[in-house]
């Protein structure tokens, strides 16, 4: 089937071309523009789902751009073209990213309506461009394309952060841009080191060479790239851009930024596990674990005194990344091929990566809705919203329990896997994780009480529009589904992804 054969290229090309056509289409009217954006994202989602089904059947899907036979990568044993690779891990990540992008577009329909004076066609163009960049990031098989797509993502997301055009949003966007430009340049420097040594840019081909001859240069390139991606994902030493950006950007942009975090972590895992798996120093795993524990601690303690709901969620997001890094870092140190608990830690980390995006997205959309219906950012100003909009309160409660890792939500299943396996590895880290969760629950109970319970809010409260409700209900459905049937999700999606990560041979063999 021709659609399936070209699926990796289509997943990138459809949002990209749709983005470029959006300013033209929006001449035809608002409804047509919104439908155009949602339909093109839905088509890309369909392509990604099809790709995922094909990949989960057990084969690595390779696509060399511009070749007459796309599945033929190397003529003469040396991959030269730009090669897109989809294995179970990248299919999972691109599926999550595309679904979130689609939900963000649906949520925007009514949420952005009142800001039409700011030029919504530009907003949608950047949104689609961001979706295209994210697809590229998850499907690319060579390092330089990775750099290009990271820049696409950071430029378009900086534009989106500044979209509300207040002074603070420009500051947040400037800060984000400085951090991410530094990160991309460090990444490019690392890529240059690898090119200087191996004369190649293809990840799989480099992975093939690394296992045979490795030296100090590889370690230097690895450290540069990992630090660049930690900058992008906003783990602890460089988390300061995150709360600002989360506070200032529109809610549906923030859920796209959560996906950028997810993708940065994915690229980091791809580099650590698939490219450098055999030569990875144990220190790197320890670094990731310790930074993860610190992220949990700092995120939770900084979240406590916040009064702005979205800023608070920004700090909670820092803490949530910490859990992913705890799980995956344990997996890096303790050889998942041989020990069961390391495998559990790694799949817990990957599962939590997905759950983290779902939970925090739901909470951010609920926070955006609270802002939409009351026009208040400060959580001490509003109260008693549960009387006005009961469904919103229920959705917020679902997301709150999920972030704090309470059953029966998705966050519980993945956090339990991380606690158990990290406890085998080092009890102290597991205790930090559990304490962080308890404090998160305490913080969110306080927020819930002050926003939804108590004295009813005096000001005018609007109705929650259907499109926004729909986006939130889809997220809540998946959170509950992953919480009630974690085994289904694990068997279908997570375990194949973890196995694709720990067996780089399949990935390398698919390309070289």
């Amino acid at each position: 089937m021709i659609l399936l054969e070209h699926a990796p290229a289509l997943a990138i090309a459809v949002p990209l071309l749709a983005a470029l056509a959006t300013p033209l289409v929006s001449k035809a009217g608002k409804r047509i523009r919104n439908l155009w954006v949602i339909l093109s994202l839905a088509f890309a989602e369909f392509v990604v789902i099809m790709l995922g089904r094909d990949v989960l059947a057990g084969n690595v899907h390779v696509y060399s751009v511009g070749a007459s036979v796309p599945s033929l990568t190397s003529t003469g044993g040396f991959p030269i073209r730009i090669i897109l690779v989809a294995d179970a891990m990248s299919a999972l990540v691109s599926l999550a990213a595309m679904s979130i992008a689609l939900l963000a577009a649906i949520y925007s329909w009514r949420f952005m309506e009142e800001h039409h004076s700011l030029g919504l066609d530009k907003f949608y163009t950047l949104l689609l461009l961001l979706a295209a960049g994210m697809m590229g990031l998850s499907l690319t098989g060579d390092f330089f394309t990775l750099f290009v797509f990271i820049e696409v993502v950071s430029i378009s997301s900086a534009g989106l952060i500044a979209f509300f055009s207040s002074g603070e949003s420009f500051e947040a966007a400037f800060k984000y841009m400085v951090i991410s430009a530094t990160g991309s340049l460090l990444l490019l420097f690392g890529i240059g080191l690898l090119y200087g040594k191996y004369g190649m840019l293809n990840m799989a081909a480099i992975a093939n060479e690394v296992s045979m001859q490795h030296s100090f240069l590889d370690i230097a390139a690895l450290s540069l790239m990992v630090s660049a991606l930690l900058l992008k994902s906003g783990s602890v030493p460089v988390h300061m851009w995150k709360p600002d950006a989360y506070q200032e950007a529109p809610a549906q942009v923030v859920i796209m930024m959560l996906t950028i975090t997810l993708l940065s972590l994915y690229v980091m895992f791809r580099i650590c596990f698939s490219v450098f798996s055999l030569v990875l120093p144990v220190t790197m795993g320890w670094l990731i674990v310790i930074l993860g524990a610190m992220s949990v601690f700092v995120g939770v303690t900084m979240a406590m005194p916040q009064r702005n709901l979205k800023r608070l969620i920004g700090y909670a997001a820092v803490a949530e990344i910490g859990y992913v890094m705890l799980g995956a870092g344990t997996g890096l140190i303790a050889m998942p091929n041989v020990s069961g608990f390391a495998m559990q830690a790694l799949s817990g980390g990957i599962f939590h990566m997905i759950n983290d995006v779902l939970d925090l997205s739901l909470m951010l959309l609920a926070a955006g809705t609270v802002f939409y219906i009351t026009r208040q950012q400060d959580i001490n100003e509003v109260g008693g919203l549960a009387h006005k909009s009961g469904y919103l309160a229920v959705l917020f409660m679902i997301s709150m329990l999920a972030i704090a890792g309470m059953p029966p939500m998705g966050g519980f299943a993945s956090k339990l896997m991380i606690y158990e396996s990290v406890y085998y590895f080092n009890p102290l880290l597991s205790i930090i994780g559990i304490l962080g969760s308890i404090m998160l629950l305490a913080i969110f109970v306080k927020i819930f009480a002050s926003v939804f319970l108590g004295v009813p809010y005096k000001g005018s409260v609007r109705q929650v529009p259907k499109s926004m409700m729909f986006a939130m209900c889809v997220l809540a459905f998946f959170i509950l589904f992953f919480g009630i049937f974690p085994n289904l999700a694990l068997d279908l999606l997570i375990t194949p992804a973890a196995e694709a990560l720990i067996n780089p041979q399949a990935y390398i063999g698919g390309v070289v």
Partner: protein
Amino acid sequence: MISTPFMAVVVLVLFGLSAMVFKRNLIKIVMAVHVMGSGVNLFLISLGYRAGSTAPIFTNAPKLEMALPVPQALTLTSIVINIAVVALMLTFAALIYEHYGTLDARKRRLLE
């Protein structure tokens, strides 16, 4: 023995990084990003250089020692991306100046 271009790369990148951390003027921070970007570009272009080589064009080539074409393509892409990034950051700096009348990062809460 480290050759001169690579020493220049190290100097430029470290200079850019330190300026980014210690300077407080937004325009200077943008300049720091650009200096660092130039350092990385210089690194890429000097990776592809071979002593005494010609341009990598095969038609009527006087000899077969050629500079590597791939790093040149990479550098070109990276220069373009860098310009886009710097232009966007300068736009933000200009808009921040318009809103607050200052470019000093210490005077603003978010930008410390």
